[in-house]
């Protein structure tokens, strides 16, 4: 049997208590061709260097923890085959986020953006458990289903040229989430969210780069959501001009 192939992983290291700026460290290890990139990082952590910090959990592409830049591209590393890369693989923390330590980024700002879009069902009259499930046709479900598939992995924020220039930009995932509720037949909060979308740093900041949808590991297509949200926010505004308030929708 031939020796397993070796690859060199060049990984960003940063401990704010010691380092002024991030540095890199190289690890040459034998890799199993079936490995994902995450398996290689885990191997380094377990067997080579216990001081390396990164986030991961489900290793099945649904918890959204293990996003990193691999050779400069935002990737979900538990989904990303190690064998597609050459002898040297560069791994850095997700772009456009402050770095806490090594490959761990600060996601508090991202979480705040989520809350801004009111990502919950808004109804004029609350329902009780005893009311039972509301009916929703398969077609109505289809309207928002795709936009409900976001795993919050944040790759789209790393890819987005607007986020890079304008850190306050609400960003692809948060807008897609707000839009997801706006087009859910059970929700009555679209006018509230559209008012948010018409504010600064939201849907009209988007430059149509489409990078978000290209890097999305779950095919959510946040770019489509942003475009639809933009259109709806305008229509909602125009309707508001024509009809006296209170008669909307």
């Amino acid at each position: 049997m031939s020796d397993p192939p070796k690859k060199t992983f060049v990984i960003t290291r940063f401990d704010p208590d010691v380092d002024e700026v991030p540095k890199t460290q190289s690890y040459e290890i034998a890799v199993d061709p079936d490995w994902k990139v995450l398996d290689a990082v885990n191997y380094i952590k377990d067997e080579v260097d216990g001081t390396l910090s990164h986030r991961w959990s489900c290793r099945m592409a649904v918890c959204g923890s293990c996003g990193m830049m691999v050779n400069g591209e935002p990737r979900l590393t538990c989904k990303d085959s190690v064998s597609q890369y050459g002898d040297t693989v560069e791994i850095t923390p997700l772009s456009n986020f402050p770095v806490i330590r090594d490959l761990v980024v600060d996601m508090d700002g991202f979480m705040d953006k989520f809350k801004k879009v009111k990502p919950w069902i808004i109804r004029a009259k609350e329902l009780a458990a005893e009311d039972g499930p509301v009916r929703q046709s398969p077609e109505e479900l289809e309207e928002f289903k795709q936009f409900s598939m976001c795993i919050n992995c944040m790759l789209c924020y790393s890819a987005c040229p607007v986020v890079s220039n304008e850190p306050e930009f609400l960003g692809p995932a948060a807008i897609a989430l707000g839009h997801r509720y706006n087009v859910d037949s059970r929700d009555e909060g679209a006018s509230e969210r559209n008012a948010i979308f018409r504010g600064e740093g939201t849907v009209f900041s988007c430059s149509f780069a489409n990078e978000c949808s290209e890097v999305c590991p779950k095919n959510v297509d946040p770019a489509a959501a942003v475009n639809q949200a933009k259109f709806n926010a305008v229509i909602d505004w125009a309707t508001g001009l024509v009809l006296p308030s209170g008669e909307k929708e």
Partner: protein
Amino acid sequence: MEIEVLRHDIVIVGGGGAGLRAAIAVAEADPSVSIGMVSKVYPMRSHTVSAEGGAAAVARDDDDFEMHGYDTVKGSDFLGDQDVIQYFVQEAPKELALLEHWGCPWSRNEDGTVATRAFGGMSTKRTWFATDKVGFHMLHALFQHSMRFDQIVRYDEQFVTKLLVDGNTIRGVAALDIREGVMRLVLGRAVVLATGGGGKAFPFTTNGNIKTGDGMALAYRAGVALKDMEFVQYHPTGLPGTGILITEAARGEGGYLRNADGERFLVERDYGVGTKAELGPRDMISRAIIQEIEAGRAVTQGDWGEHVYLDLTHLGEEKIQSRIPMVRELSKLYVGVDPVHDPIPIRPVVHYMMGGIDTDIEGGTSIDGLYAAGECASVSLNGANRLGSNSLTECLVFGARSGRKALEFARGASEGDESSLRSEGANEAGRVDALRAKTSGTEKISGLRRALNDTMESGCGVYREEASIQASVDTVQEIKRRFEDVEIQDHSKVFNTELISVLELSNMIDISEALTSCAVVRKESRGAHTRRDFPNRDDQNFLHHSLCHFDSTGPKVSTKPVTLGKWEPEERKY
């Protein structure tokens, strides 16, 4: 050094299905109550996210509580508490309706009603689903709904290292802020543990990296018994290599299990599942697969070791894509098989712990003000074997109930003496700091973890016997001693994941101690606990729960009566 103290009325540890549901229950019951939610990960990373197939609740005209109750009792091999089960089946539809109101995208019938699918051990279609990403959708719906409530204050990426108990009353928790590397006290008048199971004690598991039995170990060390820990569920269909789950919904939608000869062995031979075949309960099907492997009828060629097949090729692309798209996604990604065209290699894999923190029907523990819900708890819904799709609903039903009960308790409870809690907290901070600063130590974390994993698999697998379990009991104690000499390479404060791994390993060792200790004394076969040396169920001597108490001289195992009811124990045959 003075330790920082944070105060809330109620502290919830864990932000998955059960923890979020508990928090929402409290927030809705009384908006003036402040809730601190402490979680070692951001809530949407919690392992609830990985649940796939569905959540059970009576929904159809051909179903009723009696049937759901009996199925669950029988599935539990009569070790489920029947009062708990009756409460559960009645609350289940209401809880799933609430999830619907909160935005969960349940799959629908043409008329707009919620669709249900068949599941193992369930006598009719009562499993609600959102394709095959049910845990993901439920978790995100719960988390997003919880954001409405400003009184739920989250402490994300904070790792609880100790429960603060004063006499026999809970006062709060000590937690390590992973990001800052500092310890704090989060005090409350009631605490709910909702930290999930500990499947990572085993080498081959569907569980994510975070499933290290933390809440179980915290309660165990604080003196609360762990109950029925010997009952570990092996899910029949895990992908070889990674252990990634292929949902039971694949069989619910009509998938077959086949051996190397292409036989549907559950139909060809008598494995006790009768005409249910692939929709038998998990314990029986996992045993059947192991027997097929031992009889030489497993597939052996290829890279995946001995395995059998889950065959979906007769279902057609449209059905697979619309009902179980994640099965296809995972199979393609992690074993390179498209189930539309080829059968999926699978083998039994550690999935769920029926055992956990001993609670009563309200989630209450033996410590006043301390509650537990979800997989970390053993409320005795699942007994010796859980039916698939009961556990997501369990997180809701008992998460809500323990939240409400914690609120009721907190209203009448006093606050602890802060100065003594501060001094206890300072001691705990000192312990954690010393661990981080430790420079002696020769035992690699990964080596100890592997040793633990190996012994848990060899001693407490699908089939067990005295000698192998006893070897595990001894090996766990040896690993516990070796752990004292664990090597720490990372002495830094900020986001020290190695320190977290050490604390998690310690938790896994403690729950493994309880698990092996219970397994060795249960000399019968019941549900998921199958002994080759005692192949039959023995109601005469073992129709009781196992309890395991922590003691500095070693674990103490005792028993607790099962709450029976209208369903008399009978031979479990399908």
